[in-house]
């Protein structure tokens, strides 16, 4: 458990009705339960907007998609907004490949302006 904790870090910031979770490290089958706990805790506060920032993850597999899809489902059920940051690396490529980037509210959809 402590190893998992070391592999995945989650920091949260809250501003108005917007609660943002920034995930860094590795998100896979081993660390998914911890990430889900963090998301559940955030959802319990029923923020108007919950932001999952996956851009800083060093590794993410389909578990990251599961995390987002579950959070989207919960937000839809409770009429809240879910938004994500995917960055422009592996995470974004995976979401693109799965064909779901267009179905999510992606805050950093456009290429970063240089």
């Amino acid at each position, binding site marked *: 458990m402590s190893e998992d904790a070391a592999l995945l870090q989650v920091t949260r910031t809250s501003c108005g009705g917007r609660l943002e979770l920034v995930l860094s490290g590795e998100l896979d*089958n081993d660390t998914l339960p911890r990430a889900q706990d963090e998301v559940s805790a955030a959802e319990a506060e029923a923020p108007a907007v919950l932001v999952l920032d996956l851009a800083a993850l060093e*590794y993410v*597999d*389909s*578990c990251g*998609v*599961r995390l987002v*899809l*579950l959070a*989207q*489902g919960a937000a839809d059920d409770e009429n809240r907004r879910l938004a994500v940051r995917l960055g422009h690396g592996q995470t974004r490529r995976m979401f693109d*490949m*799965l*064909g*779901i980037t267009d*179905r999510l509210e992606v805050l950093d959809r456009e290429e970063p302006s240089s």
Partner: protein
Amino acid sequence: MRYRVLRVNVGADELLDVVPGVLAVTSGDDHALGALSPLGRQVLGAIHLDTPLREALPELADALDTAYRSGKASRVPHEAGHVIRCTPLGVGPGRISGLLLRVAPDDGDRSRARTAGFQQLTEQLSRAATPAEIGRLTTTTAAALIGADSCIAYRRPEGSDVMEALHHHGWPGDTHRLFARVPLQRGRPMSDAVLGRAPVWLEDAGQWHARYPEMAPLGVSEGHQATACLPLLVEDRDLGAVVFSFYQPRSFDTSEREFLMAAAALCAQALDRARLYTAELEARGAAERERDRMAFLAQASRLMEAPLSVEERLRQLGDLVVKGIADWSAVHLVRGTRVERVTVAHLDPAKIAFIEELERRYPPDPEAPGGAIEVARSGVPVVMEDVPDELLVASARDETHLELIRAIGLRSAIVVPLLVRGRSLGALTLVHAESGERFTEADLTFVGQLAATAAVAIDNAALYEQQRTVARTLQTALLPSALPDVPGVECAGRYRPPDPELTDVYVGGDLYDIHEDPERGRWALTVADVCGKGPQAAALTSLIRHTVQAEVRHGFGPADVVRRVNAAMLRQGGSRARFATMVHGALTVDPDGVTITLVNGGHPPGIVLRHAPPESDSGGADVEWLDVPGTLVGVYPDPELVEADVRLAPGDALLLYTDGVTEARGPEGFFGPDRLASLVASFADTSADTVADGVLDAIAGFQDGKLRDDVALLVIRAAP
């Protein structure tokens, strides 16, 4: 104050015959000589009867007067170590009729000697730690001090009604054996002393016969006359008794009694101290044993978690047991209707060989009752503090067999069932032989814990094996047993589960399949990957496979097949947590090659490896990525799915795979698409099987042979 006055019902002359050391008897306050013994004539001189001794022996006058007036014995120093004692005669104070004069050992010297002896005894007893040592000192030092000829010291074990001899001294031959264990019974001198918590004094054989007529023959059989039985008491604790015996009659007068009782009290206190000391030692020993046992159990638990086969674990457990807690150990397991011994351990391999040879010559009857087999079946433990010879006799087939079993030297054994979830899986047997140690009921808890640890490990291993069998069976059902023969096409499919060391029991969600659609003269091919693993993932995988087969048969084109799979998944699960990616295609063969109409539901892109004709000047293989966009399946009701045609010329190959390939992680990072592309390029113009095996080997090798995620591959190659 009690007056020590002899009540005399005999005449003065008779008195001279019965009292040892008597000199004379006087009467009246002038101490007129009433009788004179021969000894008296020697000591006092030839004095005429009726002569007042006050006048005849003026040096005795004060002592005579004192005794007569006070009613208490007085004395006058005589020869070395002796005194002349003047003892009043009569029926009470003021009714003294006369005096008895006798020579007696000087009490003063005796008491000084006794005081010194007492100090010595006290010192020695204070150093004695064990009841046996205290018993020895009581029967030697204390008995000598008292002047006893024989002595036996007993202890009374707490709550027991049988006295156990601690030590004996001065009993001829082995007569003491008669008194080694004495049940307490009223009407016997020692029993009366113990049960009455007061000494019993028997001054001579006459008193023995008068008071204990039944016991007297035994009491005086060795020529003893006097006996003193003293209970060893400290507060309310009965610790034992000491019996002093004397060959001469002995009058236990008050000072004598006080002295014997004081000696007995010293012994009793020493015994009490030893009891506390022993109790403390035992408590400390028990604590140390408990600590050792906890350490042992911890060691056994670690062993039971080691990544070893059940047999190997049990073998190592047996070795551990014989290093620490028993001479022999064995484990029996219930297998179907039989109980089989799976391990036997002893530090000496020759002894194990002996047992194995024994069992070869006399194969144990697994149906025979008794011992480990019985315990394994009944689940009821057995403790044999002593293995009785009758048991060996009963279990022996013949004389030789009996001899051989006896040669093992079984002394003590404990057999506990391997219980888990109310079921007995077998039995653990521990045996003490040459060590001479013994198992008792008290060992049941510890050995039971050890057996429980082993039982849980065996049970887990069995469950694990069962789950693996289920998983393997399930996995097999998810994949085609063999790919069909597609004319003009080479097909190769591969699946490899993750390394068992890296995952729990595994049923993967990866799938590949090819099947014929004879009505339309096509072939359907599928590669899919359900997110997650375990039974739920397997159920979805199965759903995908069978939905594809059904919808293909219904004549749907690839995109509609995937849409129907998507709809089926939504109906089935409805949970966004479970999704899948899949690539599905319809393959048709024509004389110039193969056409595949592909649909991609969020799946990693396929790769086409183009045949490089020898005359081509490109000089190398041509690899193309098949980027067909599409939405993963099982989440959204309206997936975006498009069909794209891929044309394979003879010798061209298509590789479809799951993300276990590109996302394989090794020391060099991710395997990734670039590495995959160049790997595939290196297999130009090789068979479909070669490509599939080559990719699988590369992926495994990249992860040091240990797959983290499962991998499925499908290679379709148009025959060259």
